[in-house]
Every structure is written in structure tokens, then in C-alpha cells.
């Protein structure tokens, strides 16, 4: 069972019920649960969307799109049924925050889903969890069953005329399925290959109906925003980045864990104070700020860096999924790059040429390179390859593979050169990556 950590700087909004037994519906209600939904039923769609816009909440799945705005794109009238889709595929390496929400606060997800449904006029919501999270799926399923039993879900929720159904769905091991349109394909029982856009999901989504898709953390934030009020929530965060988010700090820190911190919280402080600093007193070499697809940052780049979408973007990386991976000075960046690209090679859906072939080549080149058989030209080739994948692929997975690669090559070129001419890797002993 994942350990809960905490730190005084935390502002507990989403995580406030963690560790309090809130997976039990009665306990959840005792802790104020389902009040937000009641309020939304009374206030109606427009009010909800306005509160969401006011909250400044931006999607926690990675792209940081303003949630209220996204909901407002869904057409009011639609011939086909509308849907809410909760993205709990959580597969980006370095990311395990949704894990804790499903474990400790599943009803917050249900509430958020119902509220999203009320906002856009959907009668049905799907909560999609990655297949590996089987025990969390069971928790989620139990929570849904309990909510049905209480009349919070069903034909007439909370005794009103409003209908809302919720279904928990399992994945079966595919990172790409986290991409919104691929997720819809998967939910429709197909290969997890993304769809051509436009049309966007808000117009043509699941089963061809208008669909709002949000990350599990985004959805779990919703009832809290309703309870606090959008403006109050926004005030917690930084400019244009409302509220808090669950930062997952992993890698070479003393106290890895999930910490809920306000948007804009300083990264250096996060590593050195919240997470207790680099493990064993070693020196910091690099930080991956938001999951494996975000370009690496150097220690000098994090001094004053506030962790919100805009500031990290300005620093040349991305806030992504909030998974901070800390790398100490004993780590081989080439090996780290290889392990990163191996993942994308393994997870590329294979649909489009630049991603399918590009990730395969990058993995092969880096493998050879790390084994000491690289040439100077390889470094240029790796960079050329990654540059030519950027922006050319069918979906952002190609970018997700190319971006970090470019970061590693550009920022650690020297370390790549250190591997040339059959020199053994100065740090790592793991050369081969066995994944097929």
C-alpha cells in the first residue's frame, strides 16, 4: 500500500480526505461529501461552468487546458448522447498521483463526474482506469455501486428528474490509450489508436457523441471547487493557474511521495524542502519536471522556477502530469535517455511513420551508443531524428518521445561524447534493455 507523506507547505484540498477512510460512502458523506453535487443540481449548468472558469483550473492530465473553457465547448443541443470521460489511464512514467485519489477518495471522482455531466448535459460517465490498477478498479467499482445504492447515481439522482449513470472501465496496458481520442477508441473496444482531429471530442467523441474528457485529478478537484467557490480556489494558485495540484516527486530524493502544493510552488524548494533534498546528500544533476515526456531541466534552471504551466513552459519544458523526477550526479544521462526512449518505443501505437520508425531508431541508436559503439555522427543523427519527429506525428506521443531526447542531447552533449570510442559508461552498468 503506497505510503502517505506530508509536509507543512502542503495545501490540502484534493488530498484533504486522504487517509480518512473516505472510500466508504458513509464516511465520505460525514466528511461533507456529495454536498457539491446537490448544490450543482440546484444551480444548473451555466453556474457550474462559470465557477469552473473562475477557478482557473487547468487540466491535470498534461496539456493544462482550462477545464471550464473545455466544458463550454460542448454544444448545448446534440442529436447523439453526450458523455463524460474520466481519464485514469495514468501511464506517464513518473506519475502516480491519480493512484492515490482512486485509493483514498473515489467518491470525489464520482462527484466530479456527475458535476461535469450536469455542466454539459450528459447522462452517462465513464471512469477509465489503467488495467494494472486492478485493486483501484475494485475500489472504484464498489464506490459506484454504493453511490447507486444511495440514489446518487441512476435514473433520478438525489431524487430529482436528472439521470446520471456511471461505468468503471478497465484498460489493458497501453500508454497511448491515455491520449483522449485513443482512450475513446479503447473504450469502444478497439485498438488504442488516436483519431483524426478535427472533429474534437467536445463535438464528436465517444460513440460519436459530444464528450468531455478530463484527467482523474482534474475531475476530483471539481467538487472542491464547487464547495470553496471558483474564486477562492483560484486564489490559492498562481496567475492563470488556479488552485493546487498533486505533485509526485520520485527518483533521487530523501522523501519521495505525493504532495499537494499550490500551483507556482518553487521547484527547488519542492526538491530540497518538501522532498527532503537529494538522496544521500548527493548533488542534483537534472530534474524532469512533469513526467518522462517533459524536457529535462538543469539545476541552474530551477532556482526561481515556479511550478505552473506558464512558468515551466517559459523555461523550455512542461508542467505535464506533475511527476517530478529527480536525478542525482551519479546517474548516466545516456542510460536515462535510453530508458525514456525505450518506453516510447514500446508504447508507440505504430499508426504514423515518424513516431513508429523514429522511436524505434532512437532506441536502437541509443542502445548502441550506450553500449559504447557510438560515433560522433550518431549524436547529430539522434538530434536530427528527434527534430524531424517534432510536430510531425499524428498525435503528441511522437513529440513526447522527441522532446526529452532533444533536451538530453542538447543539455548533456558532453556526456554523450564521453561515451564515444568504446569508452565504458562512466556511471551505469545496465546496458541492455530487455523489453520487447
Amino acid at each position, binding site marked *: 500500500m*503506497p505510503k502517505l507523506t506530508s509536509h507543512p507547505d502542503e495545501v490540502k484540498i484534493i488530498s484533504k480526505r486522504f487517509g480518512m477512510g473516505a472510500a466508504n460512502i458513509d464516511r465520505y458523506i460525514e466528511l461533507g461529501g456529495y454536498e457539491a453535487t446537490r448544490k450543482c443540481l440546484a444551480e444548473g449548468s451555466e453556474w457550474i461552468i462559470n465557477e469552473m472558469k473562475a477557478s482557473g483550473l487547468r487540466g491535470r492530465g498534461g496539456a493544462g487546458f482550462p477545464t471550464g473553457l473545455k466544458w463550454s465547448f460542448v454544444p448545448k443541443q446534440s442529436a447523439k448522447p453526450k458523455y463524460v470521460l474520466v481519464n485514469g489511464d495514468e501511464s506517464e512514467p513518473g*506519475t502516480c498521483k491519480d493512484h492515490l485519489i482512486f485509493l483514498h477518495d473515489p467518491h470525489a471522482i464520482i462527484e466530479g463526474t456527475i458535476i461535469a455531466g450536469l455542466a454539459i448535459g450528459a447522462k*452517462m460517465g465513464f471512469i477509465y482506469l489503467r488495467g494494472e*490498477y486492478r485493486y483501484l478498479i475494485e475500489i472504484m467499482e464498489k464506490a459506484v455501486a454504493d453511490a447507486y445504492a444511495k440514489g446518487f447515481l441512476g435514473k433520478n439522482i438525489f431524487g430529482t428528474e436528472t439521470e446520471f449513470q456511471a*461505468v468503471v472501465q478497465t484498460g489493458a496496458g497501453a500508454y497511448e490509450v491515455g491520449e483522449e481520442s485513443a482512450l475513446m477508441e479503447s473504450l469502444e*473496444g478497439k485498438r488504442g489508436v488516436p483519431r483524426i482531429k478535427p472533429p474534437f471530442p467536445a463535438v464528436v467523441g465517444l460513440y460519436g457523441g459530444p464528450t468531455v474528457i478530463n484527467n482523474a485529478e482534474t475531475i476530483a478537484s471539481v467538487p472542491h471547487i464547487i464547495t470553496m467557490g471558483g474564486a477562492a480556489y483560484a486564489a490559492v494558485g498562481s496567475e492563470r493557474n488556479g488552485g493546487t495540484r498533486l505533485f509526485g516527486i520520485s*527518483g533521487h530524493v530523501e522523501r519521495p511521495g505525493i504532495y499537494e502544493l499550490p500551483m507556482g510552488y518553487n521547484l527547488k524548494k519542492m526538491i530540497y524542502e518538501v522532498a527532503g533534498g537529494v538522496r544521500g546528500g548527493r548533488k542534483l544533476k537534472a530534474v524532469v519536471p512533469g513526467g*518522462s515526456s517533459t524536457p529535462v531541466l538543469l539545476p541552474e534552471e530551477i532556482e526561481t522556477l515556479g511550478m505552473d504551466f506558464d512558468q515551466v513552459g517559459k523555461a523550455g519544458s512542461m508542467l505535464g502530469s506533475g511527476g517530478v523526477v529527480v*536525478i542525482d550526479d551519479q546517474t548516466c544521462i545516456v542510460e536515462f535517455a535510453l530508458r525514456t526512449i525505450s518506453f516510447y518505443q514500446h508504447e508507440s501505437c505504430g499508426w504514423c511513420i515518424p513516431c513508429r520508425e523514429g522511436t524505434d531508431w532512437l532506441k536502437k541508436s541509443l542502445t548502441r551508443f550506450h553500449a559504447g559503439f557510438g560515433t560522433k555522427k550518431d549524436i547529430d543523427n539522434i538530434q536530427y531524428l528527434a527534430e524531424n519527429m517534432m510536430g510531425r506525428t499524428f498525435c503528441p506521443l511522437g513529440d513526447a518521445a522527441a522532446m526529452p531526447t532533444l533536451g538530453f542531447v542538447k543539455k548533456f552533449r558532453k556526456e554523450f561524447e564521453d561515451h564515444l570510442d568504446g569508452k565504458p559508461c562512466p556511471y551505469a552498468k545496465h546496458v541492455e534493455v530487455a523489453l520487447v
Partner: protein
Amino acid sequence: MSSAETMSIFSPALSARFDALVLKYPVKRSALIPMMLYAQDEVGYLSDAVIEEIAQRLDLTMLDVRNVASYYSMLRFKPVGKYNVQVCTNISCMLRGAYDIFEHLEEKLGIGHKGITADGVFSLEEVECIGVCCWAPAIQVNYDFHDDLTNDKVDEVIAAYRAKAGRADAKGESANA
């Protein structure tokens, strides 16, 4: 042609689960992926017979079912050990010694990536990120997570499963499902 009712290779419980599952969705096909996973849990892997039955129940072709199945890395076409030990070696786990854990397991179980022990109790697999990065390094045995591991802790975990397998054997359960 086998009719699903008369020739089902699913257990009655699985059949019932399936029947309930199909009703949940606006489109029947949505049950495909969960169904494959649950059938795999029961049968051990997606055999041709399982694929055929699922195809029939969902009005799909076997080609369709296979194409979808082969996309997802948790679904498999060959049996694994009773306890499938999956070691995450992705970045967060790697930084905290996942490869040591993997090598330790290789040595301990005497098998490599995708290997199965001779008694069929364990199989070993190196897998991608399993979503426990902040409690790394971690492994997943079937669906159970074991996090914050050291080699010693791994030994304990393996010993517990071995004991469990022994008890199951004594009760006459097949080790390979």
C-alpha cells in the same frame, strides 16, 4: 459452430459477469477489453478457444479480437506462471535500483525476461511504468503491488507467494489455472 450457451469454455461465473458487462454500454463491443482481461484471469491467457468465444459473443471476427488483443501489453497469447512477477524498470524505479531488483529476481528464480520457472509457479517480466513511481522501486505480482523494495524485501515477497503456491498445491488446485 459452437453456440456460446452450449459450448462455453467460460465458467458460469465468468459467463454471468460477461452477460452483465455487455449491458452496461451503449455499444456491446465496449465490453471487449474488460472481457479479454477477465477471461485471461480465469484461463491464464487468450487461447484460440477464448478468442473464438469472445468473438462470437460480441459478434466480432476472431481477427478483430486478435488485433485488439495484440495491441494491449497486459493481454497475452501464451500462459505465464501462476505468479507473474512484473518488475518496473522505468525511470523512477530505475533511479532507485530497479535493475538490481530485476537481476536479483533473475538469479533467484533462475529465469530471464518472459521466462517461467520449471514448476510453473513464477514467471518474470520487465515491464513499463506501473504507476507507483513515488514508492519505487516496485513490482507487481499478478495484480498485487509491492513497493519500496530492497532485495531482502523481494525475498520475503517471493517466499510468501511460494508458500501460497504450496498451500494451493496441497489443496489440489492447478498451479497453472
